[in-house]
Protein backbone atom coordinates (compact mmCIF):
# COMPACT_ATOMS: atom_id res chain seq x y z
CA UNK A 1 0.00 0.00 0.00
CA UNK A 2 2.82 2.38 0.86
CA UNK A 3 4.25 2.16 -2.65
CA UNK A 4 0.98 3.38 -4.09
CA UNK A 5 0.90 6.59 -2.10
CA UNK A 6 2.71 8.55 -4.79
CA UNK A 7 0.48 7.32 -7.63
CA UNK A 8 -2.74 7.56 -5.66
CA UNK A 9 -1.77 11.03 -4.49
CA UNK A 10 -1.02 12.22 -8.02
CA UNK A 11 -4.24 10.62 -9.22
CA UNK A 12 -6.21 12.38 -6.50
CA UNK A 13 -4.63 15.74 -7.36
CA UNK A 14 -5.22 15.40 -11.09
CA UNK A 15 -8.76 14.06 -10.79
CA UNK A 16 -9.72 16.69 -8.25
CA UNK A 17 -8.16 19.45 -10.35
CA UNK A 18 -9.92 18.11 -13.45
CA UNK A 19 -13.22 18.39 -11.60
CA UNK A 20 -12.40 21.92 -10.42
CA UNK A 21 -11.45 22.97 -13.94
CA UNK A 22 -14.41 21.23 -15.57
CA UNK A 23 -12.15 18.74 -17.34
CA UNK A 24 -13.47 15.61 -15.65
CA UNK A 25 -13.74 12.77 -18.08
CA UNK A 26 -14.24 9.48 -16.22
CA UNK A 27 -17.23 8.99 -13.92
CA UNK A 28 -17.05 6.55 -10.97
CA UNK A 29 -18.86 3.95 -13.17
CA UNK A 30 -16.27 4.42 -15.92
CA UNK A 31 -13.46 3.93 -13.43
CA UNK A 32 -15.11 0.81 -11.97
CA UNK A 33 -15.46 -0.71 -15.44
CA UNK A 34 -11.88 0.25 -16.33
CA UNK A 35 -10.52 -1.37 -13.18
CA UNK A 36 -12.51 -4.57 -13.88
CA UNK A 37 -11.32 -4.63 -17.49
CA UNK A 38 -7.76 -4.29 -16.29
CA UNK A 39 -8.25 -6.96 -13.63
CA UNK A 40 -9.47 -9.48 -16.20
CA UNK A 41 -7.70 -8.57 -19.40
CA UNK A 42 -4.75 -6.41 -18.32
CA UNK A 43 -2.23 -9.23 -18.51
CA UNK A 44 -2.95 -10.12 -22.14
CA UNK A 45 -1.27 -8.19 -24.93
CA UNK A 46 -3.74 -9.15 -27.65
CA UNK A 47 -7.36 -8.13 -28.08
CA UNK A 48 -10.02 -9.06 -25.52
CA UNK A 49 -13.74 -9.43 -26.03
CA UNK A 50 -16.20 -7.47 -23.93
CA UNK A 51 -19.46 -9.37 -24.23
CA UNK A 52 -22.38 -10.42 -22.03
CA UNK A 53 -20.03 -12.59 -19.95
CA UNK A 54 -18.09 -9.53 -18.85
CA UNK A 55 -21.33 -7.76 -17.96
CA UNK A 56 -22.38 -10.76 -15.82
CA UNK A 57 -18.98 -10.79 -14.21
CA UNK A 58 -19.21 -7.09 -13.47
CA UNK A 59 -22.62 -7.43 -11.86
CA UNK A 60 -21.71 -10.57 -9.92
CA UNK A 61 -18.62 -8.95 -8.50
CA UNK A 62 -20.33 -5.80 -7.28
CA UNK A 63 -23.76 -7.09 -6.47
CA UNK A 64 -25.43 -4.30 -8.35
CA UNK A 65 -26.75 -3.90 -11.83
CA UNK A 66 -24.64 -2.28 -14.50
CA UNK A 67 -26.70 -1.94 -17.65
CA UNK A 68 -25.50 -2.80 -21.16
CA UNK A 69 -25.99 0.86 -22.06
CA UNK A 70 -23.71 1.98 -19.19
CA UNK A 71 -21.08 -0.58 -20.17
CA UNK A 72 -20.96 0.53 -23.81
CA UNK A 73 -21.10 4.21 -22.84
CA UNK A 74 -18.08 3.66 -20.57
CA UNK A 75 -16.26 1.69 -23.27
CA UNK A 76 -16.82 4.56 -25.70
CA UNK A 77 -15.48 7.03 -23.16
CA UNK A 78 -12.41 4.89 -22.50
CA UNK A 79 -11.88 4.80 -26.27
CA UNK A 80 -12.27 8.58 -26.53
CA UNK A 81 -9.64 8.94 -23.81
CA UNK A 82 -7.36 6.54 -25.72
CA UNK A 83 -7.16 4.15 -22.77
CA UNK A 84 -8.48 1.27 -24.90
CA UNK A 85 -8.81 0.85 -28.66
CA UNK A 86 -11.52 -0.93 -30.63
CA UNK A 87 -10.23 -3.59 -33.03
CA UNK A 88 -11.70 -5.79 -35.74
CA UNK A 89 -14.89 -5.04 -37.65
CA UNK A 90 -17.08 -2.10 -36.62
CA UNK A 91 -19.53 -4.56 -35.01
CA UNK A 92 -16.92 -6.57 -33.11
CA UNK A 93 -16.69 -6.33 -29.32
CA UNK A 94 -12.91 -6.61 -29.26
CA UNK A 95 -10.63 -4.07 -27.64
CA UNK A 96 -6.97 -3.69 -26.73
CA UNK A 97 -5.38 -1.62 -24.00
CA UNK A 98 -3.23 1.34 -25.01
CA UNK A 99 0.45 0.50 -24.59
Amino acid at each position, binding site marked *: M*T*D*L*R*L*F*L*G*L*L*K*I*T*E*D*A*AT*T*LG*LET*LTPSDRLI*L*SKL*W*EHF*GSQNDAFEVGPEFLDLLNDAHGKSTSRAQLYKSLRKLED*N*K*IIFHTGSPRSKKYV*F*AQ
Partner: protein
Amino acid sequence: MAGFSSKTSVYAFSITLAALLLQSFVISPLEENFRTDQYVSIVSFVYISHGVKVLLALTLGLAAFPAIFLAALINALLFWGVSITSFTGALIGIVSLGIPLILHNASVKKDLWHPPIFNNEVDFSALWLYLSFSLIASFANGLLHSALYGFHNDALPFYFILGDNIGALVVFLFVMMIRRIILLKTIRELG
Protein backbone atom coordinates in the same frame (compact mmCIF):
# COMPACT_ATOMS: atom_id res chain seq x y z
CA MET B 1 6.92 8.83 11.05
CA ALA B 2 4.70 7.15 8.48
CA GLY B 3 6.16 4.14 6.65
CA PHE B 4 8.10 4.93 3.53
CA SER B 5 9.17 2.10 1.24
CA SER B 6 12.45 2.04 -0.61
CA LYS B 7 10.59 1.89 -3.93
CA THR B 8 8.75 5.12 -3.16
CA SER B 9 12.01 6.71 -1.97
CA VAL B 10 13.65 5.80 -5.27
CA TYR B 11 10.70 7.23 -7.21
CA ALA B 12 10.77 10.49 -5.23
CA PHE B 13 14.55 10.78 -5.54
CA SER B 14 14.58 9.96 -9.28
CA ILE B 15 11.75 12.35 -10.17
CA THR B 16 13.33 15.21 -8.20
CA LEU B 17 16.82 14.60 -9.59
CA ALA B 18 15.49 14.34 -13.17
CA ALA B 19 13.65 17.66 -12.78
CA LEU B 20 16.73 19.33 -11.25
CA LEU B 21 19.05 18.02 -13.95
CA LEU B 22 16.62 19.14 -16.65
CA GLN B 23 16.57 22.52 -14.95
CA SER B 24 20.33 22.85 -14.58
CA PHE B 25 21.45 21.45 -17.89
CA VAL B 26 18.62 22.35 -20.28
CA ILE B 27 16.21 25.07 -19.06
CA SER B 28 18.69 27.37 -17.32
CA PRO B 29 21.25 27.33 -20.17
CA LEU B 30 18.40 28.08 -22.60
CA GLU B 31 17.30 31.02 -20.45
CA GLU B 32 20.82 32.44 -20.53
CA ASN B 33 20.34 33.00 -24.26
CA PHE B 34 17.30 35.19 -23.72
CA ARG B 35 17.86 36.96 -20.42
CA THR B 36 20.17 39.86 -19.78
CA ASP B 37 19.47 40.48 -16.07
CA GLN B 38 22.14 40.04 -13.42
CA TYR B 39 20.34 37.14 -11.69
CA VAL B 40 20.31 34.77 -14.65
CA SER B 41 22.97 32.50 -13.14
CA ILE B 42 21.20 32.31 -9.78
CA VAL B 43 17.49 32.03 -10.50
CA SER B 44 15.32 30.61 -13.28
CA PHE B 45 12.02 32.06 -14.46
CA VAL B 46 10.69 28.53 -15.05
CA TYR B 47 11.88 26.55 -12.05
CA ILE B 48 10.12 23.24 -12.64
CA SER B 49 11.80 21.52 -9.70
CA HIS B 50 9.68 23.66 -7.38
CA GLY B 51 6.47 22.16 -8.79
CA VAL B 52 7.86 18.63 -8.54
CA LYS B 53 8.85 19.18 -4.91
CA VAL B 54 5.41 20.58 -4.06
CA LEU B 55 3.73 17.54 -5.66
CA LEU B 56 5.94 15.18 -3.64
CA ALA B 57 5.32 17.09 -0.40
CA LEU B 58 1.57 16.90 -0.99
CA THR B 59 1.51 13.20 -1.82
CA LEU B 60 4.21 11.86 0.53
CA GLY B 61 4.42 14.49 3.26
CA LEU B 62 7.58 14.98 5.28
CA ALA B 63 8.74 11.47 4.32
CA ALA B 64 9.65 12.81 0.86
CA PHE B 65 12.11 15.33 2.28
CA PRO B 66 15.22 13.12 2.59
CA ALA B 67 14.89 12.09 -1.08
CA ILE B 68 14.30 15.71 -2.16
CA PHE B 69 17.27 16.93 -0.13
CA LEU B 70 19.60 14.24 -1.46
CA ALA B 71 18.58 14.91 -5.07
CA ALA B 72 18.99 18.68 -4.59
CA LEU B 73 22.40 18.20 -2.97
CA ILE B 74 23.67 15.95 -5.77
CA ASN B 75 22.45 18.43 -8.38
CA ALA B 76 24.02 21.34 -6.51
CA LEU B 77 27.34 19.52 -6.19
CA LEU B 78 27.30 18.74 -9.93
CA PHE B 79 26.32 22.27 -10.86
CA TRP B 80 28.04 24.44 -8.23
CA GLY B 81 30.76 22.11 -6.94
CA VAL B 82 31.54 21.36 -3.31
CA SER B 83 30.67 24.50 -1.37
CA ILE B 84 28.64 25.74 1.55
CA THR B 85 26.27 27.33 -1.00
CA SER B 86 25.49 23.89 -2.46
CA PHE B 87 24.63 22.42 0.91
CA THR B 88 22.73 25.47 2.14
CA GLY B 89 20.81 25.79 -1.14
CA ALA B 90 19.63 22.17 -0.88
CA LEU B 91 18.70 22.72 2.76
CA ILE B 92 16.74 25.90 1.92
CA GLY B 93 14.77 23.88 -0.65
CA ILE B 94 13.34 21.56 2.00
CA VAL B 95 13.04 24.14 4.78
CA SER B 96 10.91 26.39 2.55
CA LEU B 97 8.76 23.41 1.58
CA GLY B 98 8.42 22.32 5.20
CA ILE B 99 6.85 25.64 6.23
CA PRO B 100 3.54 25.25 4.31
CA LEU B 101 3.46 21.53 5.14
CA ILE B 102 3.75 22.09 8.87
CA LEU B 103 1.37 25.07 8.82
CA HIS B 104 -1.21 23.07 6.89
CA ASN B 105 -0.99 19.93 9.02
CA ALA B 106 -1.13 21.97 12.21
CA SER B 107 -4.21 23.84 10.96
CA VAL B 108 -6.09 20.63 10.09
CA LYS B 109 -4.88 18.95 13.31
CA LYS B 110 -2.92 16.20 11.59
CA ASP B 111 0.52 14.82 12.39
CA LEU B 112 3.15 17.20 11.06
CA TRP B 113 4.54 14.60 8.61
CA HIS B 114 1.11 13.71 7.19
CA PRO B 115 0.71 13.82 3.37
CA PRO B 116 -1.86 16.66 2.99
CA ILE B 117 -3.57 15.19 -0.06
CA PHE B 118 -4.82 12.20 1.97
CA ASN B 119 -7.30 13.83 4.26
CA ASN B 120 -10.84 12.51 4.13
CA GLU B 121 -11.98 14.58 7.07
CA VAL B 122 -11.80 17.93 5.30
CA ASP B 123 -13.33 18.88 1.95
CA PHE B 124 -10.67 20.76 0.02
CA SER B 125 -9.58 21.55 -3.52
CA ALA B 126 -6.34 19.81 -4.51
CA LEU B 127 -5.67 22.47 -7.12
CA TRP B 128 -5.88 25.35 -4.63
CA LEU B 129 -3.88 23.39 -2.07
CA TYR B 130 -1.14 22.90 -4.66
CA LEU B 131 -1.14 26.60 -5.55
CA SER B 132 -1.11 27.61 -1.86
CA PHE B 133 1.83 25.32 -1.07
CA SER B 134 3.66 26.58 -4.13
CA LEU B 135 3.15 30.24 -3.22
CA ILE B 136 4.08 29.94 0.46
CA ALA B 137 7.12 27.77 -0.27
CA SER B 138 8.28 30.21 -2.96
CA PHE B 139 8.04 33.16 -0.55
CA ALA B 140 10.16 31.30 1.98
CA ASN B 141 12.54 30.10 -0.72
CA GLY B 142 12.98 33.64 -2.08
CA LEU B 143 13.66 35.18 1.31
CA LEU B 144 16.03 32.42 2.44
CA HIS B 145 17.97 32.55 -0.84
CA SER B 146 18.18 36.31 -0.49
CA ALA B 147 19.75 35.72 2.92
CA LEU B 148 22.09 33.12 1.42
CA TYR B 149 23.37 35.70 -1.06
CA GLY B 150 23.83 38.29 1.68
CA PHE B 151 20.75 40.46 1.05
CA HIS B 152 22.69 42.37 -1.58
CA ASN B 153 20.13 41.90 -4.30
CA ASP B 154 16.87 43.66 -3.51
CA ALA B 155 14.84 42.13 -6.34
CA LEU B 156 16.14 38.56 -5.92
CA PRO B 157 13.23 37.26 -3.78
CA PHE B 158 10.77 38.43 -6.42
CA TYR B 159 12.68 36.56 -9.10
CA PHE B 160 12.54 33.41 -6.98
CA ILE B 161 8.81 33.79 -6.29
CA LEU B 162 8.07 34.38 -9.98
CA GLY B 163 10.31 31.55 -11.22
CA ASP B 164 9.07 29.03 -8.64
CA ASN B 165 5.40 29.68 -9.34
CA ILE B 166 5.73 29.72 -13.13
CA GLY B 167 7.63 26.43 -12.81
CA ALA B 168 4.90 25.03 -10.56
CA LEU B 169 2.23 25.96 -13.10
CA VAL B 170 4.22 24.34 -15.92
CA VAL B 171 4.59 21.13 -13.89
CA PHE B 172 0.91 21.16 -13.03
CA LEU B 173 -0.11 21.55 -16.66
CA PHE B 174 2.25 18.70 -17.59
CA VAL B 175 0.81 16.42 -14.90
CA MET B 176 -2.71 17.23 -16.08
CA MET B 177 -1.69 16.34 -19.62
CA ILE B 178 -0.37 12.94 -18.54
CA ARG B 179 -3.16 12.17 -16.08
CA ARG B 180 -4.40 9.29 -18.27
CA ILE B 181 -0.95 7.68 -17.89
CA ILE B 182 -1.09 8.25 -14.12
CA LEU B 183 -4.53 6.60 -14.02
CA LEU B 184 -3.31 3.57 -15.98
CA LYS B 185 -0.13 3.28 -13.91
CA THR B 186 -2.17 3.40 -10.69
CA ILE B 187 -4.52 0.68 -11.92
CA ARG B 188 -1.55 -1.47 -12.97
CA GLU B 189 0.08 -1.00 -9.56
CA LEU B 190 -3.21 -1.88 -7.88
CA GLY B 191 -3.43 -5.05 -9.96
